[in-house]
């Protein structure tokens, strides 16, 4: 089923906001100047952060993949108490459904955008990057591209749902 990206972004807008916030946060941590931020808009792209080109390669990578960690963690944490009762026991209260929606929305926007992948690709190609950086970053770019293309077949949603279900199940397994 094809649903325009803008509608998906609108329905999952909390994830877009957290994604852009994560970029901004890692710019702040890396002391990289930010020129413009759009947390959410009803057009393509649904959000962006325009920042200067970072001085160091690690700053580049941190800013590009920061949302992956922040969105994944926040998505998992927020839905942790609701996912199993709702998805496995079909016994959630309205608040559980709200938390689940938030969790999935946030987690499904964890993957860096194609623009983020382009940024990393730009670093790989630059003279500044050494062989180790190229070896580490290349698969990262490939994965990001795969997920970016895979969003057409709901790979991002699949990731979001997996995060909010698998992490609590893993914790449950450890407790039992």
């Amino acid at each position, binding site marked *: 089923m094809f649903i325009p990206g803008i509608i998906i972004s609108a329905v999952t807008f909390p994830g877009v906001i957290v994604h852009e916030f994560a970029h901004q946060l890692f710019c702040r941590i890396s002391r990289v100047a930010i020129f413009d931020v759009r947390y959410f808009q009803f057009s393509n792209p649904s959000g962006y952060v325009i920042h*200067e080109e970072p001085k160091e390669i690690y700053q580049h990578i941190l800013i590009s993949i920061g949302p992956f960690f922040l969105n994944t963690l926040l998505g998992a944490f927020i839905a942790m108490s609701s996912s199993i*009762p709702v998805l496995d026991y079909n016994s959630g209260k309205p608040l559980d459904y709200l938390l689940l929606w938030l969790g999935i929305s946030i987690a499904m926007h964890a993957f860096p955008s194609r623009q983020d992948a382009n940024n990393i690709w730009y670093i790989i190609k630059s003279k500044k990057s050494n062989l180790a950086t190229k070896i580490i970053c290349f698969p990262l770019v490939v994965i990001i591209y795969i997920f970016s293309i895979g969003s057409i077949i709901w790979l991002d949603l699949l990731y979001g749902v997996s995060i909010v279900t698998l992490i609590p199940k893993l914790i449950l397994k450890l407790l039992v």
Partner: protein
Amino acid sequence: MSEINSDQDQKYNDYYEQTTNYTCENCGSSVTEDGYKTKLCPSCRYKLSKRPLPKSIKIFLGIIMVLIVYSFMRLPNSMKGVLAYEKGKKAESQKKYVTALKQYQIADKEYDLTDIKAKIIVAEFYNGNYITANDLLCDLEGEIIEDKSLYDQLLNISTYINEIYYYTDDLYNLMNEISSQSNDIKIERLTEYINTNPFNIETAITLAGLYYTEDNLEQSKKYMQMVLDQYPDYQYALEALASYETELENYDTAAKICDQLFNINSESLGAYVTYADIELRKSNDKKALEYVEKAYNLDPVNSSVLNMMIITYQVNKMYEERDDLLEEIEKMDLPPEELKYFKDIKKNLQKEG
């Protein structure tokens, strides 16, 4: 001059280009940081990197943080039911039906799910609580159970219970008729009935019980064995037979029956109590205490366990523990006749001083 002038112009242009290229693009300061493509002074870079969040985003992120904290706070409670259900399933797979039942009951309080109720029935059945299992089966009537194996399990339990508690109209009338008669007449009439209906379990059980009250253990055994020939896993019959064998001092046979019970339910309270009884009769008082304590830890409100616990404390001369337990029993929510039984024990002990 013009040359000079033009030379001076060139110098000025070069200087202008150099200074504009190397001044902060934001504030015009001449001190910029090296290594960046964008020429910014440290202060501007710091300020721009610390771009403030709009109020709406601050509120949004604040709500997200509050919800995360809330989610973490309610996690133990919301996972309580899930955890209990999973623990119950694990215990069930290990035939630990007392634990399974406890865990399923916790899960049932959290979630109103047919599957959990069905699991409770299974656990009650394997704990030998057939009447409770049957009542719960009636409550579940009309509900849909999607799990095919669970459904089949309930169907088997239902058939099993109905066969065991099978009352014909004749038997029902007979039981009513003899209810106020003496044991001798009851035995006579029921023996007549069982001779023509040899497969009626209820009659055999009743006869075994009547013979037991008449201290005729051999006859009790005979009828209990008759029941077990048809239903070898009938826990009540196994427990009764084990206790008859214990009283007849056939300890090895009794122990074998207890092992059979453990094979059905590895937490069989009846088997633990009988083992404790066997050890007490063999004067292995400490060993008896071990068995009965295991049962007590599993179910501290089971009357037969409590009874054996008091006896074992008494034999082990643990008078303080015995009295404390009797005190505790008085506060328990036991059926009135059981409560009276324990109160009588307490009274008798007080009389004895």
